[in-house]
């Protein structure tokens, strides 16, 4: 691959106080790819997500996005480079309506493309259209996840970071959400970096994958290869496909 990756994470270390959460992580996401990061609880997946967004800040290493060093940028300026995130725990605005939540997502362009983009989100997640005037906090878990992704899409991102979109959702809803991600990637060419516990679904969806153990990337490869790898199978897949 000759072109520089869209997002490049190089030997990044992150600490919570004195506890090292990330111990020199290298990850690259190329333009137009879906990349999945899988790993057990506490492996540091979400920490990596948050570190890319500068909260917490990396203590060592560099993070580059589209040629810009974003390691030391404040979070809101990183977001302005068009990295959007559906964070862990969804973090929608519970007292605001669905439409207002989407409006917040479009703040970067000051609602310039709001009408157009909101239609796109509603085609992707028709459920959100039905719930348009309802408060975010009254939605079901799956709908909140859709809203969180929809809100991230309203920012017209170049890179979409998704932190466990399948968490706590019924298999059918998970499939809907994964289908939506695939569709976005195919039709819009959206680059997606996905953190998942649901290794099977994520690796099937992804072009490439990384496996994280104890704050380090231990394995990487194409989604298909990782799915076939006996070690990955033993650790994350056997004993119940999701």
């Amino acid at each position, binding site marked *: 691959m000759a072109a520089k990756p869209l997002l490049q994470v190089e030997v990044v270390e992150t600490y919570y106080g004195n506890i090292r959460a990330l111990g020199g992580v290298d990850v690259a996401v190329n333009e137009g790819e879906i990349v999945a990061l899988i790993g057990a609880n506490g492996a540091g997946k979400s920490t990596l997500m948050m570190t890319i967004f500068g909260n917490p800040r990396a203590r060592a290493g560099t993070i580059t996005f589209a040629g810009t060093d974003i390691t030391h940028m404040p979070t809101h300026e990183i977001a302005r480079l068009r990295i959007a995130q559906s964070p862990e725990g969804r973090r929608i605005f519970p*007292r605001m309506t669905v439409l207002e939540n989407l409006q917040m*997502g479009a*703040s970067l362009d000051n609602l310039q493309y709001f009408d157009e983009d909101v239609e796109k989100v509603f085609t992707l997640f028709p459920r959100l259209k039905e719930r348009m005037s309802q408060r975010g906090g009254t939605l079901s878990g799956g709908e909140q996840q859709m809203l969180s992704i929809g809100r991230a899409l309203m920012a017209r991102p170049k890179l979409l970071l998704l932190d466990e979109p399948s968490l706590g959702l019924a298999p059918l809803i998970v499939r809907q959400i994964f289908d939506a991600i695939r569709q976005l990637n195919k039709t819009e060419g959206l680059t997606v970096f996905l953190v998942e516990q649901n290794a099977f679904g994520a690796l099937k969806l992804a072009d490439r994958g990384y496996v994280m153990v104890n704050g380090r990337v231990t394995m990487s490869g194409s989604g298909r290869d990782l799915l076939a790898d006996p070690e990955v199978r033993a650790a994350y897949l056997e004993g119940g496909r999701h």
Partner: protein
Amino acid sequence: MERTISRNSGESSLFAAAIRESLFAGLISLGLFIMLVGLKTDQNIRNELVIEQRWGLLASLVALTMVGRFLYVLFVRPALERRKLQKARVAPKAAEKSYLARNWTKFAVLFLFIYPVLMVLMFGLQGSLKWVDNFGIQVLIYVMLAWGLNIVVGLAGLLDLGYVAFYAVGAYSYALLGTQFGWSFWILLPAAGLMAAFWGVILGFPVLRLRGDYLAIVTLAFGEIIRLVIINWREVTNGAAGVSGIPKVTFFGLFDFNISSPYYIAKVFDIAQSGVYYKIFLYYLILLLALLTAFVTIRLRRLPVGRAWEALREDEIACRSLGINTTNTKLTAFAIGAMFGGFAGAFFAARQGFVSPESFVFLESAIIVAIVVLGGMGSLTGIAIAALVTIGGTEILREMQFLKVIFGPDFTPELYRMLLFGIAMVIVMVWKPRGFVSSREPTAFLHERKAVSSAFTKEGHG
């Protein structure tokens, strides 16, 4: 489940339950009061400790508890549950509101504009003074203060317990500049607002990283610091003695309200002299200032900064990851909220003609916060109602002379205002834990405004 079944099985089991629960309550109260009430230690004439037995009093207390519990279980509780059920059944049907209900803010504003006229017609020129000044202006000052604080607390979700500091800054700005340089109110009003906004930013900077209770403590301290500075910086503020002789507001220089002035209103219009004109003028002035606050708040909510405030209240981290500069957003909330506090302060100084640190104690901040919370954070209507109830209510207490008939001629009702204030607050918080108006008006609509039943937009309680 259990309760519904037992209710279905008939009236008799409810009666049995009432008997059972009243016996139980009686037992508890007996256990509780036997030492507290039943036995009393006392000294007899020879200074010896004796135990007085008060079994009669104890028995009547226990009996009262039992009867109360019995009636509650038998009548009050089923009635409450029936009402709850009925409410749940009716709620999803969005009731068609009447014309009056739909336009009631317009009617309310209209009423506020004709209020002084009504008062003059009802009580005569001198008689209206009390109602326009003590009641009308007093309530409106707090409405304005609470609406200003609402921007910080209700919209941006930053609990500010030192709001009175900005009120003080505004009041002293007008008081000092007005007395020292004789500048007009109309120049000093914006100046007082700007000064307060400046101090709002000054306070905002150090507390940017704080939230919730920590923020509350620091803002509380800030309120006290401003007051202590005013008391101790005698060369400028005249300390605890305060500043007096603050010039009155003129009607844009066309006429004024000083009897000695050649432009005194009574001379200009050739009418009888009276102090009431000034009060009525002040009433309209504070009404317009309050409406300005409301108007700006409503407009801002639809602008990016207002939306960012509300989002900030909900989730700061999410805001940042959506590209919102939370630092600027918080500072603008502090500055704009403080600015309205400053306006109100300048008005207060002009109205009183005298300011002293006494007027800016913590209790004032607490009352303003209480009004915002009682009204339902973020709702302008709710806050106005809360201000009317709390401030107007305490003023009305003075009028309740009939209470003297009940409690004896020495009873001064206004002395009990903090007690009643507290009771009222507890009752409202039990009855409406989210304040008078808990529903939030959405600001985003797709193409056209669609009426949505409040049953769908309201969050579940507790």
